[in-house]
């Protein structure tokens, strides 16, 4: 049995995530000012910003939550999270360094789609509806590329100084991975306890439906941004 305090904690997890103010977010406020003004290598601040971006980014967190929801072995968790990390590192570094221009709204809509995709996959939806099971060893790194472009567009939106750009970018990327590990550890801890409860089965369905809903909201939010921006 799980102590009541932990139950409250697990029950509070999803609403807390969904209520996060950082609904597909960029770097803002004083962080953005800092990043714009920083010339030269500043590894620790950029490391911190990368970690902060990940820990406070509900779109990334929901996708990771979806990935690990039904991974029961630590080996599998490590494998999928590594694939996701490789995917988003490639596009984060390449996107900024090669100055690849992608529309931030469409990328963020794609990130929302990745959240919805993984939730539907967790519900067994692809097998139930279409009779096929997509291979997540391909889908996860592919969506990882989208998440990396999302990170890249946030940095590209600011005028980064070319001085120390590579060092700062790598620091930011390392920070993203550290933040991801932190979030991952917290989510894994809660989910492992959750799985041991009698009500995991039914609540897991509800939880993934909520993740799916959040993904759909993110898609609409970003597409609305794309169309209002294009009209402006």
């Amino acid at each position, binding site marked *: 049995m799980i102590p009541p305090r932990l139950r409250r904690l697990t029950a509070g997890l999803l609403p807390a995530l969904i209520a996060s103010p950082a609904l597909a977010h960029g770097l803002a406020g004083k962080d953005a000012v800092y990043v714009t003004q920083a010339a030269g290598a500043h590894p620790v601040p950029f490391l911190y910003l990368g970690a902060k971006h990940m820990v406070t980014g509900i779109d990334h967190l929901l996708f990771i939550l979806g990935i690990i929801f039904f991974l029961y072995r630590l080996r599998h968790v490590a494998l999928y999270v590594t694939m996701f990390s490789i995917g988003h590192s490639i596009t984060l570094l390449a996107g900024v360094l090669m100055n690849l221009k992608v529309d931030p709204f469409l990328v963020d809509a794609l990130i929302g789609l990745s959240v919805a995709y993984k939730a539907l996959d967790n519900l*067994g939806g692809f097998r139930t509806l279409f009779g096929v099971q997509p291979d997540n060893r391909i889908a996860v790194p592919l969506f990882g590329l989208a998440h990396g472009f999302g990170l890249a567009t946030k940095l590209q939106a600011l005028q980064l100084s070319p001085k120390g750009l590579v060092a700062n970018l790598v620091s930011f990327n390392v920070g993203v991975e550290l933040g991801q590990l932190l979030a991952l550890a917290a989510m894994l801890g809660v989910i492992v306890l959750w799985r041991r*409860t009698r009500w*995991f*089965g039914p609540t897991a369905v509800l939880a993934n439906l909520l993740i799916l809903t959040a993904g759909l909201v993110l898609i609409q*939010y970003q597409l*609305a941004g794309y169309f209002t921006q294009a009209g402006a």
Partner: protein
Amino acid sequence: MAPEPSSEGHVPHPPSRRRLLWQLAGAAAAAAAIAVLFVLPAERGVDLTGFGRATGLVKLAAPPAPQEVKVEAPKTGAPLHHAYGTDFRTDEIDIPLGSGDGPNGELEWKVKMKPGATLVYSWSVSGVTNPEEFYYDLHSQSAPMPKVEVISHEARTGLSGHGALVAPFDGIHGWYLQNQSVGPAVVHIKLAGFYEKMTPADVRKAAEEAAAQTEFGPPKT
């Protein structure tokens, strides 16, 4: 007893097709409602239903207050900002003039200024009612270099003048004032800026010095 975890990567007992479709429809409806009613009005200013305006949510999407933007100064040919030492001064002077037919009906009133120095001025005449009967010439007169250059900024009749002057060169700058009315007049001048006052003797001396070698011309750039 907790259910044995499945290793198939999805919920232990996947919902049936029929049930899943209902659940997906519910999720889609909830997502659409959240997005259309709340997120789009508040974040994007897109208010499809009027709910955003009715609840005030749409105000959250109002553009932020205008920010200061640095722009290049327009190319006017002259700098828009000058910085000087601390020799800022202000003066208020009353200059009496005799009647137009007498010997004291005209006067040169001037100050010394370095090139680029500025002053603002405001003057008016009392004792004269007809603007046609008071003539002035605001001009700059250079130190001999070797010739003396004179630039006339404004020469006309009138009872008042207000403006700013940037010294085109090192020299003396000010007014030739001429009362053409039948009675005496007083000119009230207010000055502020970066200049040195001159005594009437200084002005007379400068005028005499310049008399022989004055050259009228365009501003030296």
